């Protein structure tokens, strides 16, 4: 009985949080304000630069190490010597 009540309480909390977030999202999207903080731009620059570095690193790893390695393995599997 207690477990059921606790679960119901948590469910209500989750429902309230989701509802509040949706209302806030609606308010934000209906807002026409065009003013932003400098910190957001700073965060955007850092995020974009980090994302580009990570993508570049992953592309390098995949194209230079992983894919050639897989190709070698496949070649060795199918080589009939």
């Amino acid at each position, binding site marked *: 009985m207690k477990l059921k009540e606790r679960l119901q309480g948590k469910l209500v909390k989750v429902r309230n949080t989701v509802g509040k977030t949706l209302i806030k999202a609606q308010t934000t999207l209906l807002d*026409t304000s065009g003013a932003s903080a400098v910190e957001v731009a700073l965060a955007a620059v850092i995020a974009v630069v980090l994302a580009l570095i990570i993508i570049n690193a992953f592309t390098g790893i995949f194209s230079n190490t992983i894919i050639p390695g897989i190709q070698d393995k496949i070649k060795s599997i199918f080589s009939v010597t």
Partner: protein
Amino acid sequence: MKQITRIFTNITFFEIIVISLISLSAFLILFSAFVDPLMIIKGFLFTLCMIAISYCDVKTETIPNMLLIPLVLIGLIHVSWESLAGTAIAIPFLIAALVAKTEVIGGGDIKLLAAYGFIIGRGAVIGLLLGSLIFIVRYLYPRLKKKKVTYAFAPSLSLGCFFAFILV
């Protein structure tokens, strides 16, 4: 609509000359950058919308929804799946606006970013990067002097997206 009319009826002669010069130089840059006439027309309409939005943002720190609708219509020229993916660039900013306790980014800026993403596609990332750098260079000193917390983001973003439109 009345708000936009009021903003643009109070335009001064000096501002008209500056806007005309910016439009002319943008057209010349687009003419030298693209061969496809449709892309030149798209770029020029895009530039005109960006100028109108930037002017509105500088004057009133608001971006009316009526000015964003033409951007979406311009984005329909050469539309692809990449255009739809480009709108996703606004999602992190929307999440930031939802999570933050104070106002860090305006709703108008989020919608503007989504519209630019729709037009430019994946190049909007470069536009965002350039625009943010211009915004930081322009407003970091006033921000450190604690004059204000929020500033008009649309002019910097427009400039960055214009260069991204040409480069990508």
